């Protein structure tokens, strides 16, 4: 039987891990991920879980240990945040290149300096090209569900690629909500035990984590790229299968909300989507033709979807909880590239950096400006929202 509990998104994620029955969890604590791995340690200590919890001396070691276990055919989990994720950076490409289907949670937090423990997505987006599938969630429930879905995705023989599930620090990680914990029996049906031939095995000796020189390196990378193409399809299929079994599905790579006849849309990833949803409802009541798009998967990127949006809306704003210095918000770059030559007018709102709140009035303001932009207002393409003092533009 499924049960309902009042959980923070960190705890909900831990339940997702528990239900996925990993063999090994290797993690090093860091704010705001700490309560997630503490909950996992509790599960092990109380005997509720039968995974091995490996205490390691750093995040680099955490992922190295997880990879070692994965290379033995174990289902493994790790989690980190911010500087911890950056410290793991070297191991990220080891794991993705070796095609170890590890699932990790990144509890998104700003990167130093200035030192800051609060939420933004600069940590994960700095790791965009690490070869991991990158999912962003809106709630604790979605975090729990996506951990289970992610194991199925990562371990699919055609995918065999690690998955990073991103949840916003504090806004989600430390915020409590009613969460449904699915039935273990049903999860076992959905997610069978991990089987792979990509492992060390006395019966079938092989070399793993090989060196590949210029002669074949490109070909190996092509197969990695192909796996992401398969993942695009699988993310949608797995999500709808999950929906049929558990009554919750999220739309696969993206979710559109009230966009049918919309003229002005906002696009974002992560927890801010919850607030956007509310603003869209409120503005719709007033007759405004607004809608929103939630990007759930950054890698693989839903390119075909954005290509199909060309010329559909009058204006589009992309909210970024990051900034790639010298250019713009990463999600904005991706979307613009896919929508090349569209008549839609764009603007990039950099907001929620270092834990600053993105509140309703701010989002309503974005929609208001999108309307003005559609009506010809000229404005800078990249704007920091909610600044204390007017800057430049």
């Amino acid at each position, binding site marked *: 039987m499924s049960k309902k509990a009042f959980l923070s998104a960190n705890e909900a994620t831990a339940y997702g891990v528990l239900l996925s029955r990993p063999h090994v969890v290797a993690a090093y604590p860091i704010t705001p991920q700490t309560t997630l791995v503490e909950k996992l340690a509790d599960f092990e200590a109380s005997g509720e879980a039968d995974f091995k919890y490996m205490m390691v001396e750093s995040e680099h070691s955490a992922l190295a240990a997880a990879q070692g276990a994965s290379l033995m055919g174990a289902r493994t989990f790790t989690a980190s945040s911010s500087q911890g994720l950056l410290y793991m950076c070297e191991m990220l490409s080891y794991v993705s290149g070796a095609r170890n289907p590890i699932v990790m949670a990144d509890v998104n937090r700003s990167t130093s*300096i*200035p030192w800051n423990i609060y939420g933004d997505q600069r940590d994960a987006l700095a790791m965009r090209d690490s070869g991991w599938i990158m999912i962003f969630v809106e709630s604790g429930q979605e975090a729990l569900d996506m951990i289970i879905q992610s194991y199925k995705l990562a371990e699919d023989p055609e995918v065999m690629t690690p998955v990073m599930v991103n949840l916003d620090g504090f806004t989600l990680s430390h915020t409590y909500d009613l969460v449904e914990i699915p039935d273990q029996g049903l999860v076992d049906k959905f997610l069978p035990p991990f089987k792979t031939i990509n492992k060390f095995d006395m019966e079938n000796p092989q070399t793993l984590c090989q060196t590949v020189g210029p002669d074949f390196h490109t070909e190996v990378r092509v197969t990695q790229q192909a796996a992401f193409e398969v993942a695009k399809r699988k993310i949608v299929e797995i999500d709808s299968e999950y929906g049929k079994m558990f009554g919750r599905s999220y739309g696969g790579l993206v979710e559109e909300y009230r966009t049918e006849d919309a003229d002005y849309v906002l696009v974002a990833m992560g927890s801010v989507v919850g607030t956007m949803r509310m603003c869209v409802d409120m503005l719709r009541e007033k007759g405004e033709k607004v809608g929103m798009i939630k990007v759930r998967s950054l890698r693989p990127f839903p390119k075909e979807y954005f290509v199909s949006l060309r010329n559909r809306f009058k204006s589009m704003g992309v909210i970024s909880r990051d900034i790639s210095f010298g250019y713009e918000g990463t999600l904005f770059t991706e979307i613009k590239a896919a929508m090349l030559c569209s008549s839609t007018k764009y603007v990039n709102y950099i907001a929620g950096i270092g834990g600053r709140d993105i509140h309703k009035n701010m989002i309503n303001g974005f929609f208001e400006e999108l309307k003005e932009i559609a009506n010809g207002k000229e404005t800078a393409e990249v704007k920091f929202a909610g600044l204390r*003092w007017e*800057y430049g533009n």
Partner: protein
Amino acid sequence: MLKPKWNKEYKPPASWEEMPFTGNVAGLLPTPNSGFRTLTPHFNLESCIKCMLCWVYCPEGCIDKSNETFELDRDYCKGCGICAHECPKKCIEMVRE
């Protein structure tokens, strides 16, 4: 109170010109953050046995014991009531401000 108080003279930057290079200035971080307190501990030390449990358990370290009597750092006390809950002699009352 031995505990250092936050610098009330400190004025946060008020313009781009006043923004310190890469945030390098003392004072940007520590700000009084007790704004959401609704109940404040009041000490009545007549039956106090100086067990110091209140001092140990306060998660904010805002009960000062440098003088004969306890002093509360009101800039940081969140009003959680843990001190009152832990006091074996019921010396601490949580009072609505």
